[in-house]
């Protein structure tokens, strides 16, 4: 695999969140509740992920696993409870600061790549850097090595409509990782792919996360995808059921 260039200059985390201490775990939530109207999606859930750890969130449809991911990523605010990143409460940050945190510290991959259809693959990958005010030429230069790394050579100029599902998902993965996030949130990242493409995406995701020390929060209902993680958290009826490694030995 090709080595990637060092991460582009972005604001330090301390510019986004107050305080400088960075205790483990890197990402956590405690006693989080979240409702949508009369439906309680999360009911006092706890979660932790250490730096560089890959954690799978599993559970049946409607169990609250995607809502948990959205709360951990600061996309949704909990009704009650706290969410911490690098030791600081992110549920208390303003929307603007949470948005900056998501842009500069977090990466996202969803079930359907959600590439911007008007942009080329290369422009899609460089998008997080452009939003972080990295100059266009520099951003494209940082985006290009990802194409070789993820087996996408020659597809730089294609629009998303000209890519296969597996190719589009690898472009989405490159876009999520190009700004070297501390946490990658992946919500059913192989859900729309056949087995072989899914395996390729997961191998690349895990290899890159391990190499860069990226924490991964992986929502999936597929055991074969969860098996790439260091451990799993089961969510059922908005509550977590954690089995620590070794408990079942």
């Amino acid at each position, binding site marked *: 695999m090709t080595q990637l260039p060092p991460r582009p200059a972005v604001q330090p985390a301390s510019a986004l969140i107050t305080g400088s201490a960075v205790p483990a775990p890197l990402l956590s939530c405690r006693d989080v509740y979240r409702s949508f109207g009369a439906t309680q999606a999360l009911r006092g859930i706890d979660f932790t992920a250490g730096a560089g750890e890959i954690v799978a969130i599993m559970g*049946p449809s409607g169990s609250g696993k995607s809502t948990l991911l959205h709360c951990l990523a600061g996309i949704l605010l909990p009704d009650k409870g706290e969410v911490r990143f690098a030791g600081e409460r992110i549920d208390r940050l303003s929307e603007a600061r949470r948005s900056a945190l998501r842009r500069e510290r977090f990466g996202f991959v969803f079930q359907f790549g959600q590439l911007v259809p008007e942009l080329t693959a290369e422009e899609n990958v460089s998008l997080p850097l452009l939003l972080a005010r990295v100059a266009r030429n520099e951003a494209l230069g940082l985006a290009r090595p990802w194409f070789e790394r993820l087996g996408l050579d020659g597809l730089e100029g294609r629009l998303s409509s000209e890519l296969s599902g597996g190719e589009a998902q690898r472009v989405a993965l490159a876009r999520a990782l190009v700004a070297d996030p501390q946490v990658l949130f992946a919500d059913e990242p192989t859900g729309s792919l056949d087995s072989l493409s899914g395996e390729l995406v997961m191998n690349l995701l895990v290899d890159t996360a391990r190499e860069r020390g990226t924490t991964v929060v992986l929502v999936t209902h597929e*055991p074969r995808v969860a*098996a*790439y993680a260091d451990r*799993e958290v089961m969510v059922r009826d908005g509550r977590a059921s954690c089995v620590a490694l070794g408990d079942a030995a």
Partner: protein
Amino acid sequence: MSVSYALLGLLEQHPNHGYELKRQYDEYFGRDKPLLYGQVYSTLARLVRDGHILETGNAPGEGPERKLYAITAQGEEEFSTWLADPVTPEAHLQTILGMKMVLALLLNRPADAYLDAQRHAHLERMRELTAQRRTAPLIDALLIDHALFHLEADLRWIDLTTSRLDSIAKELKG
């Protein structure tokens, strides 16, 4: 081996004699393969020898099959340990997992917690196999994939059973 644990679990409900134990076993676990009387009594004799059950007299009626057996404290401990221990993940486990679920529900044990532990054991095995497959030659990867798909089938059964525990318990207890 699992016949011994099934009889221990059935005896944990209340003392019973061999004929009735066979009837209950066949109803819950032996539809395709009922227990032979010889197997019932040899298993009970072995459980007595190991101190897991003891003879407590005779039920009303005639004949040696009316002998009553009761589980001992040692037997209860042996049974509880077996029930809570996840089965070593391998293909085609439904029979023994199904037996554990029926016994757990009959005895008001935490069947959902047992299933969570079993799910974790399965995922641990899948993690090991997935890690092996990532560096394995393709011919080995094919065999690993086969094992992974079977473990995944078990996990689907575990998930479905988890969501049906309440209904199964109601059916079992009438």
